[in-house]
């Protein structure tokens, strides 16, 4: 008996000790986790996919310099010289613009191409793993919907930066190269090649149409920093507009406006008192018209704002300034308030006399907030443009009236209506389309729309005059109509890593 007792006790001690030691010595990382719940993947979306508040919130903070919204002045100050080095590539549409920006050690988004793909990888990881996670099925479908919608968004941006416009004349979008479609997080040895423009659009449409019902049903509580059904509607409306599918573009704009038609009334926001800062408003966290508080912060183009003494090296073009019916000297009725509220201004001469807009910025409510994304104003403009295109085609006057109603409604929230009521605009014929396009430019400037809009308007000719040294005469750089440089070059860093990646001509 004694023997049996001692053996049992011995065994018990052994088992007990080993039980303890196992837990005690178990290696556990303090900061690494193996994602196992749906919520973990939601956090992964926040960390890897959504750009807001991340260390690299911007993607293309040079594209506005390629449009007709910006102009350049000569300044011999060394500060201006370094600024010219940073932006000369995009401003003069150089085929090696990514390399010149890199060489200038610019604090701008030189790695646009890789950046979008890093975020797409985040979407793919979430989509590949979501079905293996524990959790509520409503949350699961919400996460899936967000990942699909965001992947659609990133591919939409990529194909419009690095591929021909969907509606380009004389281009077969079924063969014209878009970007590589990577739809799985599994990496392998093969070198991906570029899918066609139509193929990428097809994928974007598929992702968005798959995401829409999921977000409608399960994404109701998503904050404006996440993708929602409103996000999907807006992007679908924008995509169909680019594809010139006017009724679909109008349909999705209406779908979204039925849910939220609010606009910020700029006249109710105090006139910015600090002389240089834009007004807080449409992208602030409580803005009723914000749909997606998406990306970019106020430090975009900051080197342009921190300008040297003397003439401003880059500023908003005269052409764009002249589009605004803004008269600041009449303080009782300043007219179109967007010219002041949506731009960062400064004095050109340090004598406090010549006050000019440097660049556009829809300032967020806090310094860390995002300044770009999606808002209902775009929906009004998308719907108006679709209606006008249909009116111009078949002369349906109801479409013309509907378009003018949308445009006037938007404009009435942008004019100084404190003392003077807004006067409705009434016009018809092709002039209405020009008016709508100008309105789109006024409203959405510096929100990464203009470049893409110019592309789908038939890629018009643009002139940029540029001078960088005192001995040099100003050079007139021309982006010709339909120029191949309306498609950005694939960066050398990407071509080097993939021999089967076709460069842009």
């Amino acid at each position, binding site marked *: 008996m004694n023997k049996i007792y001692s053996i049992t006790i011995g065994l018990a001690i052994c088992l007990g000790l080993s039980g303890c030691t196992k837990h005690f010595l178990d290696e556990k990382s303090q*900061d*690494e*986790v*193996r*994602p196992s719940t749906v919520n*973990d993947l939601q*956090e*992964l979306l*926040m*960390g*890897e996919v*959504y750009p*807001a*508040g*991340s260390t690299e919130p911007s993607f293309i903070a040079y594209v506005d310099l390629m449009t007709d919204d910006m102009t350049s002045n000569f300044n011999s100050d060394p500060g201006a010289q370094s600024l*010219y*080095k940073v932006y*000369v*590539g995009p401003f003069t549409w*150089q*085929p*090696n613009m990514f390399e*010149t920006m890199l*060489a200038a050690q610019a604090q701008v988004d030189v790695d646009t191409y*890789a950046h979008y*793909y*890093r*975020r797409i*990888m*985040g979407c*793919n*990881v979430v989509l590949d*793993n979501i079905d293996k996670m524990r959790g509520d099925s409503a949350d699961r479908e919400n996460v899936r919907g967000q990942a699909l919608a965001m992947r659609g968004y990133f591919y939409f941006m990529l194909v419009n930066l690095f591929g021909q416009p969907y509606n380009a004349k004389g281009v077969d979008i079924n063969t014209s190269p878009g*970007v*590589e479609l*990577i739809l799985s*997080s599994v*990496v392998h*040895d093969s*070198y*991906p090649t570029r899918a066609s423009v139509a193929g990428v659009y097809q994928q974007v449409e598929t992702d968005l149409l798959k995401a829409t019902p999921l977000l409608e049903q399960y994404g109701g509580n998503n*904050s404006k*920093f996440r993708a929602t059904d409103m996000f999907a509607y807006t992007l679908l409306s924008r995509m169909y507009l680019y594809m010139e599918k006017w009724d679909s573009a109008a349909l999705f704009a209406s779908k979204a406006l039925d849910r939220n038609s609010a606009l910020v009334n700029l006249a109710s926001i105090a006139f910015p008192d600090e002389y240089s800062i834009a007004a807080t408003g449409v992208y602030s966290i409580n803005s009723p018209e914000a749909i997606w*508080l998406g990306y970019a912060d106020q430090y975009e183009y900051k080197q342009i704002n921190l300008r040297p003494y003397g003439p401003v090296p880059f500023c908003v073009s005269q052409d764009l300034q002249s589009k605004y019916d803004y008269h600041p000297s009449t303080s009782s009725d300043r007219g179109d308030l967007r010219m002041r509220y949506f731009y960062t201004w400064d004095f050109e001469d340090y004598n406090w006399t010549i006050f000019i807009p440097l660049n556009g910025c829809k300032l967020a409510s*806090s310094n*860390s*907030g995002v300044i770009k994304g999606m808002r209902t104003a775009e929906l009004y403009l998308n719907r108006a443009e679709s209606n006008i295109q249909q009116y111009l085609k078949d002369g349906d006057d109801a479409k013309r009236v509907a378009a003018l109603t949308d445009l006037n409604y938007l404009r009435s929230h942008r004019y100084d209506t404190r003392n003077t009521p807004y006067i409705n605009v009434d016009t018809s014929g092709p002039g209405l389309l020009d008016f709508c396009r100008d309105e789109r430019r006024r409203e959405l400037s510096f929100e990464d729309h203009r470049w893409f809009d110019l592309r789908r308007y038939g890629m018009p000719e643009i002139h940029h005059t*540029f001078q*960088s*040294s005192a001995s*040099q005469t100003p050079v007139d750089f021309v982006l010709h109509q339909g120029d191949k440089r309306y498609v950005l070059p694939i960066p*050398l860093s*990407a*071509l*080097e*890593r*993939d*021999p089967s*990646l076709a*460069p842009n001509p």
Partner: protein
Amino acid sequence: MASQNWVSELNLRASYGWQGNVAENFGPDLIAQLPASAVNNTTGEFELKIKSLPYADLRWEKTKTLNLGLDFGFAKNRFIMSVEYYHKRTEDMIIYKPLPVSYGIDNMPVNGGTMLNQGYELSLSGTLVRTKDVVWNLSLNTSRNTNSLNTDVATTSVWQDAAAGKLYKKGYAVSSFWVFPFAGLDPTNGYPLFHIPTKDEAPNAAQDPTQYMKYAGRLEPDFQAGITTSIRYKWFSLMSAFTTELGGKKLLYKMFNQPNGALPSAYSNMPKEFANRWKNPGDEKRTNIPGIPSLVYNPADNNYDAPTIQLPIALTYEYAYDMYNYSDSRVVGASFLRCNNISLSYNVPEKMLRGALRNVSLTASVSNPFVIVSKDFKGMDPEVATGGQPIPRVYSAILNVSF
């Protein structure tokens, strides 16, 4: 064995080992990491970052090691030979394969390589002459280590690595290096010219710099050894030590060492041979040293740049003067025989010592007295010519007295 007397010692050693290594940083599961600040200040939401993707098919790294040793002693150990050899082979080595940008991550680990390390060490020593008055000892040791990486994964696409011997290419020994083929000087301005193939001749140049560079040899020598010898004649002894390397090539120092291919600064030291540079048209027939560059206006970036030459890669230009630093006109044979030390000493015979004196000796020695190198160095100190500091020559005389 006992019946013979010419082999006095014979030892043989051998060992073999097998080892496996797990790649600890990767696993078959997705690993996420908490960022430094778990809550995003802007969105107010919790965040996770991806640490590593799931890699389901990674295998262990396997290492096999063989060691062999052999000691010989002849004629009552008057001659001794010792050989050591090792052979270490690592299979399924985990290497990071660079990925196309569109995969969204920089590289992935693959069991893609086989690394072979091997080497031998041989030492010989013997007493060639042993008489009452004269003893002559000679010893030699030589060793060689090689490691080669056998993989289909391209190791580098950067020409600077190829010029530094860091590019591993199948069929070429480790430490092979490549340089730009020099094509003389431009008769109009004295700029260096190179035989750079066109894009069609070198279609894969972006991945493989050897397509537009020329094989220049190996940086490592074929043979290197240390030799020491000592001769004693009565109370005098003479000792000397040599090192030698045979085979192998080197690049001379960078003649144009300014960043961005800029002009040599007024403060920088230029070598004597720079005086012999190209100055006027016609000089290209007698010299290979390019003239002083002048900056050219580059309309693309609105800058004044040093002259550049396009590589057969889209949009890739290199400074011509930097390429000259890495051209075959700067490659020299690196074989040498260096005498490290010679010393002559005289020991005062004991019978001449008086009183408390136990030992008195007088030594005169010189270190680094001479070196024999290839004539490519044009009389320059080989250390300086390859970018190092000169080894000084030191004379010393020593009087040693012990009580």
